[in-house]
């Protein structure tokens, strides 16, 4: 058993021999992650793909220190932030208080306003989360993550609950914010195009470890019609078992 340890190292994420088992209820256990190794360089945008139930969300939860029942060695940046599938804002706190919740200093309204302005929510500073639309709530959650100036941003399918149009806008926003903040990002997603539009590197999780690891060397902003984009897309879909 080893907990997540934080250290000043060359990588934002460094994982060696990680295994996570779940009891299957019949007395035995199944390894969802088995002997997994992974390094993510500082500032690198990594997309993690995989079929449902392959353990990609479990890996993200382990890196977020939300799951400690693991064996192996996990080193991650001390300054981390997480964006979940649902915004998970505290409904009893005004939007700006949500953004600065958990920061060591006293609630700093100006800092919250700056972060909200960055995600285009300057007009939503003083409202209850209940009045936000789905896309706005997700942007507020992004502001809450980035206000912490993380070295590692973990995103667990942050756009999957949004409608198609909002998703495209949100994707553009993440791209833009990443260019500015240059933190390492691990984006868990189902969406191959989303992965190729955003990431420097795509991973596919298979049989409890990283089964495919390829760089994405397409100039930004990326064009879906680019032949390299098309080639990678076909390759990834084949990897994921979609033909």
């Amino acid at each position, binding site marked *: 058993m080893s907990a997540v340890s934080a250290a000043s190292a060359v990588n934002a994420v460094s994982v060696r021999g990680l295994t996570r088992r779940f009891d299957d209820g019949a007395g035995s256990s199944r390894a969802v992650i088995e002997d997994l190794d992974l390094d993510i360089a500082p500032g690198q945008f990594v997309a993690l793909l995989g079929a449902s139930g392959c353990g990609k969300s479990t890996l993200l939860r382990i890196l*977020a*220190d*939300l799951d400690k029942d693991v064996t192996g060695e996990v080193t991650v940046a001390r300054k*981390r*932030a*997480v964006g*979940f599938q*649902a915004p*998970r804002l*505290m*409904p*009893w*706190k005004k939007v700006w208080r949500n953004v600065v*919740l*958990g*920061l*060591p200093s006293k609630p700093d309204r100006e800092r919250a306003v700056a972060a909200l302005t960055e995600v285009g929510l300057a007009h939503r500073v003083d409202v*209850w*989360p*209940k009045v936000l639309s789905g896309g706005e709530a997700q942007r507020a959650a992004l502001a*809450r993550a980035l206000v*912490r100036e993380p070295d590692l941003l973990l995103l667990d399918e942050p756009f999957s609950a949004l409608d198609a149009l909002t998703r495209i806008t949100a994707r553009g926003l993440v791209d833009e914010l990443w260019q500015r903040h240059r933190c390492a990002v691990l984006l868990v997603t189902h969406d191959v195009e989303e992965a190729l539009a955003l990431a420097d590197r795509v991973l596919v999780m298979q049989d409890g470890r990283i089964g495919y690891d390829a760089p994405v060397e397409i100039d930004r902003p990326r064009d879906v019609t680019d032949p390299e984009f098309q080639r990678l897309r076909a390759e990834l879909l084949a990897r994921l078992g979609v033909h």
Partner: protein
Amino acid sequence: MTTTPERTRVPAQPSAVDSTVDFAVDTVTLASRSGRRHGRVPRWLIKTISPIVLIVLWQLLSSTGVLDDDTLASPVTVVETAVGMWEDGSLQSAVGTSVLRVLAGLAFGVVAAVVLATVAGLFRRGEDAIDAPMQMLRTVPVIGLIPLLIIWFGIGETPKIVLVGLAVTFPLYINLFAGIRNVDSGLIEASRTLGLGWFGQVRHVILPSAMPNFLTGLRYSLGTAWLALVFGETINATSGIGYEMNKAREFFATDIIVVCLALYAILGLVADMIVRALERGLLSWRPAFSGQ
């Protein structure tokens, strides 16, 4: 606003699908709500009229002698008695004494319930130690404890306040405990990733999320508090609304009894209004359905 369809029915037989038949759909024009409301008697008026009718009926029955004063005093007599009690000061002093008893019992009960529910809700060990006995004790009707309370605390103020306190503690405990245990685990996880420690999670996540349950419990508790007070005051009291009522019983003074009942009702209503105001103030963040 017409609802008349152009044709009444599509031809019944499926075989009738030939090009010479033009199809017609049976349509209705939907009335808009604003149109429907127009010209109706306002709701508040209906709500006000029915109690007034009841009181007028009561007065009529009294005036015609169907209801004699020993059974139930007439509304006019009741109002006169209330004014008289106000003028000689007995009404104010009775209300003051009773309100103080409820407040004292409420303070005692709220503190006990909050401490017990918080400890049981936040700690597994606390739940093991506290929840089982609380669940057993809450099945005992509080009113049934009066003889024991008199033996333990005599017949002064203490047994009455303790009785109200106990009546408040149980419903509030049950609701608050459930509220603490129903916290969204996703929010707890999020707060952990934001760097909140245990105290921060309790303060920023668990307690605010249990607030709606706390207020529901408080409202229910206030109801049982008045009930306990009525029982407490009709036994061995020398002051308070219940004492006035008991004294009146000996003289068949039904007017005073009705005044006292009305006082209990008004005080209960005021207490409920206070909690509702608290809910409006403290729960404005809630996306709850508030009725059509």
